[in-house]
């Protein structure tokens, strides 16, 4: 494969890897702002008001940078993989993108109104109502882009056989423009993203609150961060349960619709019904080398179904087996996260105050980083697991990619720029979060007063 194709591939992976981190944080902030506004309206507790006012400022920054990186991705898809986008635009997948624009509009308009003109609205619950479409818009954007990803994994909505048979003329026929809204894998992929992305967002914020809670010099600040931390944990509880259920369903979907990816993820060299669960290791020939095997566990978890094996497919079509390691880290990280949440619930049920001792706050910080890592690895597993295809069994990355060498210079500039921009954005968000004295922030949510006009 040519260098420029690999460069296209790397550039897009790098951009989307950065983007999903920002977007998760944005979604987490949108949800926390919405919940805090509701609790503020209901209880008039000033700490919820302080939390809202402090979160809105980094949310604006995150939205600005997230929008830019989203548009970078959208344009990069055309620029780096034009044959892929030609197929997308000739089929109903582009309709999914089109609907996403409306979700984007809902998010943008309500965000602008809420942030800059929030105080124009009267009524106890009105500000909270304004935040609802922001949450819906952000989640809908994530859902719709995952619907595109689902179509890439289980394509439909056109005559696939005729397209493949047409060879280099790439002829699209038999189009059903609405079919890509519901592919074989749409349901479980959407369910998965609705659990995992908000989970990452609230865990990242919870980690930040935990850190600031440990460092805060005043009782008022500690109370504010503790309020945020408790909210983050409560929300994480919900999303971690959703993620576990969705993850299990997704594995089942892979077994059914992408058996090769399943075999690579589970590291099954040959087909069988009582396979062990293998942690790490690799495959040489038809044998597993290295790693830790737990006999019969995979077969037990899959209810005795017959598992596919790598040996059923030519080795040239295998995805990189590193996805097995990525999946294992994800699995272990997810299990640890689940245990952590259970421990927190146990402490809460037994009427102890989990954050009275700093250990749990430090642990939260560590689990926050782990959740982000797990999400990135999950995405990596999904995307690398489809290689060498960009649209599974239909179009390869090599055939879809742009071979224009003019991409190198600006592409490298984008990578270098992101290396500075993303960390700087996180640093800046921390600065603006704490930018105003606590007394000012506890006076309640702003309506544009915090903006430099």
């Amino acid at each position, binding site marked *: 494969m040519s260098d420029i194709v690999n460069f296209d591939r790397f550039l897009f992976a790098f951009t989307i890897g950065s983007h999903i981190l920002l977007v998760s944080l944005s979604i987490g902030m949108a949800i926390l702002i919405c919940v805090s506004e509701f609790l503020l309206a209901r209880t008039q507790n000033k700490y919820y008001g302080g939390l809202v006012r402090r979160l809105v400022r980094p949310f604006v920054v995150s939205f600005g940078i997230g929008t830019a990186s989203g548009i970078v991705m959208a*344009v990069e898809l055309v620029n780096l993989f034009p044959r892929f986008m030609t197929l997308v635009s000739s089929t109903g997948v582009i*309709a999914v993108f089109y609907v996403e624009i409306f979700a984007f*509009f*809902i998010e943008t308009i309500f965000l602008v109104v809420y942030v*800059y003109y929030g105080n124009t609205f009267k009524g106890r619950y009105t500000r909270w109502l304004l935040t609802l479409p922001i949450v819906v818009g952000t989640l809908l954007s994530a859902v719709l882009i995952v619907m595109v990803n689902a179509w890439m994994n289980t394509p439909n909505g056109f005559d696939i056989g005729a397209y493949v048979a047409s060879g280099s003329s790439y002829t699209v026929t038999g189009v059903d423009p609405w079919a890509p809204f519901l592919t074989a894998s749409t349901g479980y992929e959407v369910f998965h993203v609705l659990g995992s992305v908000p989970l990452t967002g609230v865990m990242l914020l919870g980690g930040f609150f935990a850190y600031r809670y440990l460092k805060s010099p005043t009782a008022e600040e500690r109370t504010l961060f503790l309020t945020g931390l408790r909210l983050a944990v409560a929300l994480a509880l919900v999303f971690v349960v959703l993620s576990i259920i969705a993850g299990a369903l997704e594995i089942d979907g892979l077994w059914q619709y992408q058996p090769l990816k399943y075999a690579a993820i589970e590291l099954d060299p040959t087909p069988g019904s009582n396979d062990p669960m293998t942690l790490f290791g690799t495959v040489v020939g038809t044998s597993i080398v290295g790693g830790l095997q737990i006999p019969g566990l995979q077969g037990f978890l899959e209810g005795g179904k017959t598992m596919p094996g790598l040996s059923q497919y030519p080795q040239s079509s295998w995805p990189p087996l590193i996805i097995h390691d990525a999946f294992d880290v994800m699995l272990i990280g997810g299990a640890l996260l689940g245990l952590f949440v259970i421990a927190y619930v146990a402490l809460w049920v037994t009427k102890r105050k989990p954050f009275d001792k700093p250990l749990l706050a430090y642990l939260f910080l560590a689990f926050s980083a782990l959740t982000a890592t797990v999400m990135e690895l999950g995405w990596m597993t999904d995307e690398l697991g489809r290689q060498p295809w960009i649209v599974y069994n239909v179009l390869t990355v090599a055939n879809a990619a742009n071979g224009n060498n003019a991409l190198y210079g600006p592409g490298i500039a984008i990578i270098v*720029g992101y290396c500075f921009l993303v960390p700087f954005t996180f640093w*800046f968000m921390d600065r603006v979060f704490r930018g105003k004295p606590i007394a000012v922030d506890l006076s309640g949510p702003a309506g544009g007063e*915090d*903006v*430099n006009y």
Partner: protein
Amino acid sequence: MSTINWLFEINFAIFSVFFVLFVSELMGGVLLLVAYDATKGKVLPYLVPIWEVTGTFAAFWVVTGDFAYPSMLWPVANLLAGLILVFLILFVLRNASISFAELILKGGRISEKRLYQLFGIATIGIAVAVLVVLSAIVSGAGVTLATLNFSLWGWVTSSGSIPYVVGVVFIAVGLAPVFYDIAPLRRLSVPFTVAGVAVEALGLYLYSSSFLSGYFLIPAILTVLASVMYQFRSTIPLVTNKLVFAIVGTVIVFSLSYLVYPTAFGGAIKVDAVTTSGPMVGAFYVLSAVGAVVVGLLMAFYMLTVRNAAKVPGVPSPAPSVGPVVHNP
């Protein structure tokens, strides 16, 4: 009998809205760059909320373009790959600088002024990239379709290119005082706008004499009229009303659609031949109709909120976009 290509019309209408919003940003960016302290009071209250909407319209235009012209994606991506990535870098810089400027704390090493000016520079850079791309699509300057090659040098040396860009810059400078109601710059408005329209006409003529048809008169007259109306006290309130300006601006840009329809790239591409067909057309219409309602309602809600904000004491009152126009005597 020829029929209307509605996919083209819808996509071009969305482009027109985006372009007007973007030019309004460009005008603001230039003013912030050259006279920050004198103009920030007029420019920032408009710019700060609207830049987020402009970006959304940009995405709207790109996606409807992808939808309408799938067979053009391969040639466009190959032709303009490098230039498009440069645009992306500048776009990120634009968003980053303005969102940081909005919220940066006072008294730090970097001031909000520097960041807003960086936004101005990024916006000018985007404008140059966008104009190069647009003029290449209009005229085919620098483009070799047979080999899918774009030469920046070929574009520069094409006789119409420089006047094409200079004309737009002059018009933007001429209309900036009108849009932002900067009274001290009022006298510059007419000469710059007239010169801009003339130079733009020259650029188009040099590209192809057919571009300078009777169709050019409507946008030319409307553009000059805006600057002329700004000279008279009685017409100032109308011409500085941002909603009126945006609507007229959209009409002006939309009336230039003849430059890329029925043919683009200097006559080399027939638009009807590259427009999507079959069941995708129906889907495009259905989604566009639904989208028009959704976006229309959202924009109405936004404008209503801005109007109400002007009446509420204590709320920062950005841009009398649709509200009463306040003019500096």
